[in-house]
């Protein structure tokens, strides 16, 4: 028995921590609506159900997908245009199985393959929160998908392959923080929806989970534990700061869709939850990409001139950031990407990030500068701050200019 006791205690502890990981979010004394609000933030519902610069949850956010355009619908409790008529079971079916009211299949832009991991209790807390909001009459524009993608019934087959339709099962061999982080990342935050590449069926390529992917013209970075390609070399504090505020010293700032994720979701998470996310991300299997090594690069004269004219007033010539640390370019991932994927987006469209304080913003430079000039300044930035040879060309700028041939033409809200 003396030998059995520690074992028994160990098992009980593991059981206890697993139970905690599954336990619904929110402090003691919070009512179901408050809990639902926190969960809705953690699940980042607002990002896709809020129109650019519009009222939260009223729908109309545009997704430009390879096979057409769809819009996030109104999820206020308006009966005519929102979700006012949903019963509990119908709401649970939508989040866990991707089946909307009247059996209408949802498209997987709605991350129900993640939300399916949520407990029924948490799903209904979110419903309670949404139903506590003022109903707003707001019709979303009709979706425009090409055949066969406009056939909603076909989602039955996609779901068989891609939606496990199961609830989150804690891993009892891991800590409570890990399990909490897993629940936040997988069931709620649906980080993989952007950070994991998709296969030809638009399902997630699980072999490269969190390995990075291009979504709506933005590169969602590799955030696996790989030291070179991922975030393995970041300190816990830096990761926590980046998730909570969209910025960490010597790692640059979040922009585009990640800035939206911070703005709508991550900045509302408690610090223990942020730390739990960090614990989980630390343990994600590394995915290594071959990245050209840093090397001194011949400066682009036109790019240097434009940077001195147009960029130094906020970024400073040494990239330290002048008015705000959010303008720091030192260590920014965007400056290490030879293709300048995200650099071009922020140059062309500008951007902003709200983190509770005043908004940090960058104006769009697409209208004032030619594609040659933007390519030059992007290459200079990559060479100077990323120490890599930029490969941005006039053509690559034109490909992603808003309204350009290859552009997803998704205006950054507020940008």
């Amino acid at each position, binding site marked *: 028995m003396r030998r059995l006791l520690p074992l028994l205690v160990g098992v009980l502890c593991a059981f206890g921590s697993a139970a905690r990981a599954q336990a619904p979010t929110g402090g003691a004394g919070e009512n179901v609506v408050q809990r639902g609000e926190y969960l809705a933030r953690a699940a980042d519902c607002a990002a896709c159900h809020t129109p650019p610069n519009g009222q939260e949850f009223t729908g109309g956010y545009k997704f430009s997908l390879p096979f057409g355009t769809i819009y996030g619908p109104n999820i206020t409790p308006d009966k005519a245009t929102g979700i006012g008529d949903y019963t509990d079971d119908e709401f649970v079916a939508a989040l866990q199985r991707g089946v909307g009211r009247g059996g209408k299949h949802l498209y997987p832009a709605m991350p129900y393959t993640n939300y399916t991991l949520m407990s029924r209790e948490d799903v209904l807390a979110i419903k309670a929160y949404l139903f506590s909001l003022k109903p707003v009459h707001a019709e979303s524009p009709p979706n425009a998908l090409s055949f066969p993608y406009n056939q909603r019934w076909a989602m039955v087959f996609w779901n068989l392959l891609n939606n496990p339709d199961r609830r989150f099962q804690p891993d009892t061999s891991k800590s409570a923080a890990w399990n909490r982080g897993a629940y936040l990342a997988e069931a709620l935050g649906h980080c993989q929806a952007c950070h994991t590449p998709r296969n030809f069926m638009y399902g997630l390529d699980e072999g490269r989970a969190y390995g990075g992917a291009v979504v709506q013209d933005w590169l969602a970075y590799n955030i696996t534990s790989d030291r070179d390609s991922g975030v393995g070399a970041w300190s816990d504090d830096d990761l926590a700061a980046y998730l909570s505020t969209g910025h960490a010293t010597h790692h640059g700032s979040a922009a585009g869709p990640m800035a939206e994720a911070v703005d709508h979701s991550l900045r509302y998470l408690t610090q223990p939850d942020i730390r739990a996310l960090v614990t989980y991300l630390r343990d994600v299997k590394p995915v290594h990409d071959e990245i050209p090594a840093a090397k001194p690069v011949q400066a682009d004269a036109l790019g240097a001139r434009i940077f001195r*004219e147009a960029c130094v*007033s*906020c970024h400073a*010539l040494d990239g330290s950031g*002048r*008015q705000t640390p959010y303008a720091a370019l030192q260590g920014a991932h965007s400056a290490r990407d030879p293709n300048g994927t995200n650099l071009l987006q922020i140059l062309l469209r500008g951007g902003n990030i709200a983190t509770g*304080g005043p*908004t940090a913003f960058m104006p769009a430079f697409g209208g004032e500068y030619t594609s040659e000039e933007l390519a030059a300044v992007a290459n200079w930035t990559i060479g100077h701050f990323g120490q890599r040879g930029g490969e941005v060309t006039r053509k690559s700028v034109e490909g992603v200019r808003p309204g350009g041939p290859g552009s997803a033409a998704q205006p950054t809200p507020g940008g």
Partner: protein
Amino acid sequence: MLTLSINGTSHQVDVPDDMPLLWVLRDVIGLTGTKFGCGIAQCGACTVHLDGQAVRSCVLPASLAQGRDVKTIEAMAQDPVGQKVQRAWLDLEVVQCGYCQSGQIMSATALLTTTPKPNDADIDAAMAGNICRCGTYVRIREAIKRAGEA
């Protein structure tokens, strides 16, 4: 209500958190030596010091200046480095129309405070982004070097 330390004096100002510092300086407190040029951090005319660093006040939300030391062109006559810079500016007759010069002097003073003997590259880095429509750049460079020797 924000509390701002400007040129060593504490000011209580009732403004929105995101009002640019330049608006507070000129329109609320009445310190009009700092100029409005472009309003989007592209010209440098509005440059002031925030804890000694040259920043563009037109894009700096006033709330971010709380608890920090703001200095404007009005304080440069009392600043040991600022005095040298203004002396050199007068000796070499740097100014033509003058509109950008508050900003030029603030950037030059911030540079000389951290780098008393700047070389051309230091000057290029620190003065980039301060635009002068009259083209006084050659005299600005000379005056910075003169102030560094004084």
